């Protein structure tokens, strides 16, 4: 996260490869389910034995004795509808919810988060020197109206994407944050409105940032968890 600050985002998880290295983010939407991004995984039938999700982290690489760390193996990956670029990861066992680990709400189907809503992104990714990259960083971004964003992107915006407005101070997600949440406070609840996707440049000051619009895929998410 570029332009963020250390913070608390209890639904944000770190996804680790077999060597225990963090390589992408995710969001805990059910005790045993994490949402992340397709780009981070080699295929929809990838063998993820040895891959883990780390929850309850503040430090990217805490000592093994960190009492709040929950390291849970990933047992299965499910790819979302084609244009969603989303994946659902099933965990080997449910996460234990506490003050460091919490679920984030899913929005109602096809809900459009109003422009101007202040949301936040979180992750352990590259900070480009703007913050301490050893800890979880959080940054605020305002939602940009679809029409405005469409104009700024000269018509390349899809309905499955939502935008946040660029900030002059350069705030945004970067490598290592992909798959993490765009969480918005609505009706006193934190709701997973977007998922961070890789973009060509981090924290642009001249272009909106794009996220996958989760509300378009809530029916798929519920269906996978039910089936």
């Amino acid at each position, binding site marked *: 996260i570029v332009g963020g600050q250390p913070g608390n985002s209890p639904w944000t998880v770190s996804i680790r490869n077999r060597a225990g290295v963090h390589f992408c983010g995710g969001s805990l939407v059910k005790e045993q389910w994490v949402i992340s991004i397709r780009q981070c995984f080699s295929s929809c039938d990838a063998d993820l*034995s040895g891959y883990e999700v780390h929850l309850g982290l503040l430090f990217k690489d805490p000592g093994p004795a960190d009492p709040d760390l929950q390291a849970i193996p990933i047992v299965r990956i499910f790819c979302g509808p084609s244009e969603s670029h989303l994946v659902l990861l099933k965990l080997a066992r449910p996460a234990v919810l506490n003050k460091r680990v919490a679920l984030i709400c899913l929005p109602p189907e096809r809900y459009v988060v109003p422009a101007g809503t202040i949301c936040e992104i979180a992750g352990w990714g590259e900070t480009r020197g703007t913050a301490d990259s050893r800890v979880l960083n959080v940054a605020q971004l305002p939602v940009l109206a679809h029409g405005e964003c469409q104009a700024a992107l000269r018509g390349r915006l899809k309905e499955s994407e939502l935008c946040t407005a660029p900030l002059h101070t350069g705030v945004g997600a970067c490598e290592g944050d992909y798959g993490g949440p765009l969480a918005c406070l609505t009706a006193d609840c934190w709701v997973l409105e977007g998922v961070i996707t890789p973009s060509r440049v*981090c924290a642009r000051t001249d272009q909106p940032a794009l996220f996958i619009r989760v509300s378009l895929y809530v029916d798929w998410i519920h269906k*996978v968890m039910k089936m």
Partner: protein
Amino acid sequence: SRSPLNDFQRLRATELLPLPPEAPPPPEPGPAEQCAQRCATSPACRAFHHERQSQLCQLLRWTQHSPGVRLQKNIHYDLYQKKDYLRDCIVADGISYRGTRATTEKGLRCQHWQATTPHDHRFLPSPRNGLEENYCRNPDRDKRGPWCYTMDPSVRHQSCGIKKCQDAICMTCNGEDYRGFVDHTESGTECQRWDLQHPHKHPYHPDKYPEKGLDDNYCRNPDGSEQPWCYTVDPAREREYCRIRVCKKRPRPLNVTTNCFRGKGEGYRGRVNVTVSGIPCQRWDAQAPHRHHFVPDKYPCKDLQENYCRNPDGSEAPWCFTTRPSVRVAFCFHIRRCDDELGAQECYHGRGETYRGHVSKTRKGITCQRWDAQTPHVPQISPATHPEAHLEENYCRNPDNDSHGPWCYTMDPRMPFDYCAIKPCSGNAVPSILESTEAVTFEQCGRRDERLQLKGR
């Protein structure tokens, strides 16, 4: 500090069954290593079953190459067989070879060791010397390796020409795919088994890296090193390379792409050379600002040209060292992933609830399960629950009005359902999400301790 298991090749979840069936020997208690020790000291023993849960083992007088014996899946057993009876190559001069080759290097049939015609000799079988049937053996330490008396009266004996293990199977590129049977390092030190943590503790558990072929104590290359290596049984030397013949023919790279990447991107040969955050990548042939071992001429198959994003070590995606000292490596996730779905065969209107076509494959090409079947998935939606949905055969349908179109249960046990290789018809009128004015109702979630956040700051 070598383990007695080093002499054995392990087959997981496998049982050896003699035909006709024979009463198994009484099981004996003990961990696998103890069983191996017992089998090694018993001349008649060639293999053993080890029951992991009960820690019992059965010593066996046969291997999978013995006549009338077959392998069978059995999740309770691991089968350990003496390597010397299984390998079709030799170590050193081959005096321990116990394979079943029975022809000479010129193709002559071997004479049974028991027989004294057409050639009389003094090498007669005994329970210990391994001279059985008419298999090639090396009872007199012949430097040329195993040999036999021949059935050709004019040729008394001839070498069998069995290859040394280090030459039997060559390796391509850096040997990531090497699955041969070399189990000693280039200095001749024996390798430690990958499934043991002594004398050296290590992270490469076979269960954790199922695709790396970390079998027994054979040389492998699980970490993108220059060539296969192993941990050694020498406590003072943790790991060492192995000497393995390089195949003459270099394999044609698979999945070569240039403007997107497939799978882990090992075949990506494009020219993206910056990280997402705009940091230029470091040249592969440079050692500054980051020293590394991925030197281009040591990895001829990985195309480590210039400073392009590449994946020489099986990471999650193409990556590079960066020119910023504080950022050693970065994934190049901003390179687009190639589309890996089947081309759409048909199209559907609306959400596809009225689709009645015969497409019966998912977008990944997996065959659909019949709607009235119970395996591999017990369906929650079936012709009985949705009589009006025309759930025929295993055709794609949309009985639950899924907004993402027709789907089916799949024949892949790991994948309950998936969408089909059908796309919306052009001009498909789906109401835009931007016009919906639904009321907002949320579940009990999305709460966090705001005070903690303040404290964080």
